[in-house]
């Protein structure tokens, strides 16, 4: 088993961060995700697009096992991060989520200070050895979240007092503060105005240097702008997956074409 994993790494660890095979998700009796196979590359932005209810968010939440919190949800199939099955009985979802960070649709800062929002993750994972260490992490994360200049003078003001766009960047900064390897973003810009959206998009492009980013979006323009790879979901199926340029210019599947030309969805 170990040998095989090593072998796999040699071949594709450089490229493939997450490998999903035959993933099925059920909500009680509803079959929400059917037979999804996808390979998500490292240091790449992968966009999941598709009409509402197509299962893209559900699939995203499988990648850090956030679906575990929903009682009626059942996941089958095989999802591997760096070759390790994340649904293995030995995996503690808490450790997994430290490795796979998540940013949600609605900005959800904790009702605490900006500083405490960022410091929370490093604190519970013991990433900082001293107060100065923690200060460094907070500053670095806020810089990575492209919000440092706006909040550096009021780190102890409540995070909930920021504007929507600032809150979302704070949440992104909070997610990167725990040094994840993968960052999942569930429609991070749907509650933001165009200016805040473009700031977050720029940020995503920068984050690509260090993380593998998976973003769910309703906006095809956004997918086209920020991602290198795009996956199109429809009715729980992964219809098409490929280079973003190729998906948007020469889609192979008629359903993808209908969607990106605005005929379905």
């Amino acid at each position, binding site marked *: 088993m170990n040998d095989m994993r090593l072998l796999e790494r040699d071949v594709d660890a450089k490229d493939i961060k997450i490998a999903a095979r035959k993933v099925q998700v059920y909500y009680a009796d509803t079959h929400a995700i059917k037979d999804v196979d996808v390979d998500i590359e490292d240091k790449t932005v992968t966009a999941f697009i598709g009409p509402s209810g197509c299962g893209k968010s559900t699939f995203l939440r499988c990648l*850090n096992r956030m679906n575990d919190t929903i009682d009626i949800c059942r996941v089958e199939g095989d999802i591997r991060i760096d070759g390790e099955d994340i649904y293995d009985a030995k995996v503690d979802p808490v450790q997994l989520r430290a490795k796979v960070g998540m940013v*949600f649709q609605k900005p959800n800062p904790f009702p605490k200070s900006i500083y405490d929002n960022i410091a929370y993750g490093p604190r*519970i994972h013991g990433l900082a050895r001293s107060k100065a260490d923690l200060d460094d992490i907070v500053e670095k994360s806020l810089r990575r979240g492209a919000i440092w200049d706006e909040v550096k003078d009021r780190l102890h003001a409540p995070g909930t007092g920021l504007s929507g766009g600032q809150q979302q960047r704070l949440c992104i900064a909070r997610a990167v503060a725990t040094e994840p390897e993968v960052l999942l973003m569930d429609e991070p810009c749907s509650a933001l105005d165009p200016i805040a959206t473009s700031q977050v998009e720029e940020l995503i492009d920068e984050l690509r240097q260090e993380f593998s980013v998976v973003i769910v979006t309703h906006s095809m323009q956004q997918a086209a702008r920020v991602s290198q790879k795009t996956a199109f979901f429809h009715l729980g199926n992964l219809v098409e997956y490929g280079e973003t340029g190729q998906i948007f210019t020469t889609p192979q599947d008629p359903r993808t074409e209908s969607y990106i030309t605005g005929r379905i969805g």
Partner: protein
Amino acid sequence: MSDMSMDSAAPRRSSKSLHEVDARTRRRNAAETRFKACGIGAIAIGLFFLVVLVVAIFRSGLPAFTQTVLDVEFALTQEQYEDAESQLFKTKAYSQAFNGALKTQLDESGVTLPFDEASIERIAGKVGGTIREYFRANEDQLGQPTSFQLAASSRVDGYMTGRVTRDGFQDSRFLTLADLDLVDALEDAGIIRTQFNWNFITGADSGVDNPGGAGIGASVVGSFFMMLVVLFLSLPIGVAASIYLEEFAPRNRFTDLIEVNISNLAAVPSIVFGILGLAVFIQFMHLPQSAPVVGGLVLTLMTLPTIIISTRASLNAVPPSIRDAALGLGASRMQSVFHHVLPLAMPGILTGTIIGLAQALGETAPLLLIGMVGFVARGYPDSFIDGFVEPNSAMPAQIYTWAARADAAFYDKAWGGIIILLMFLLTMNIIAIILRRRFERRW
């Protein structure tokens, strides 16, 4: 309702001036005005009853805070003491000595009214006993002029406060018209006067024949220890149960059943908890009877459903996005609950707790069943631990006992007890509000 119905004659909106109010709008506005008037009416009725309640409580309760005393300065010589102690009816000898002193005092102020031992006994009770007790305990005070404040009987007290009047007064073995003349004379001489009754606040219950000496202090202490038990049991148990049910427990038929039963328990009459406490805590577990710890346990059972229901509601009201945020950062479920959800739910939990405690504080029926009746409250506990296990009463049970007694003076005491009970409740609420503020300040 009526403005919902379609007007068939005018299927299309006609364009009219905005400066004229059309019939539909007028009806809608009228309905709104009527509704507002109803609301104001409801609040006015509520306020009216509140005012009536407060006025009634204070009018009837304030006399309990005053007492009528006979203030007599009196010296007993060593010979008198020895003489009295050598007699067969010792207290009678003391009474005689006292009456002598009283007569001198009255003569000095120019009052010449005949009085005898019997009338003094009717006015101030058996003074001999009180005096004997005092000097036997303080023999070094013999020969020294000592000032005695003797509580007047409840009828004299009523006469002073206006409860008993001369109109239609009939002589009885408790008080005669001649006694009233004597009381008036004593009042003119400054011997009888009304003063603030500290004993009512600090004292313990008295016998049925001595309403003047009755105090609520001991039962306040009983209530206090009971509330300690209730608080320290029901808050942690209730909050832990709610956290488990709300955040960890799987949703299945078993937890549904528990949920339904918790709601049902909140509606169970308190006397049922009382008899349960009697059966389980006293008859089965052999905990001491009439002890505040048992009362606290019974009231804990009663308070738990209230706390659990309100805690679950306030946990439920915390936006799920906060839990997602914490879990998404790799916090464990427990960390997400204790670091983020619980602090946000704290104000709601405190509100539920204070409602539960207030209910428990006013509960009478279960206490009567486990023996915490008023007359048990005969003194303060000697130590902190005794406060839990020594027989005591609680405020509502004490008030109930007073209200059930024959002597009309206890009626005042019952109302006065209500005032103390409400003040205790007010203090608890103020503490809760301060705590709430402190938690809420964290935005």
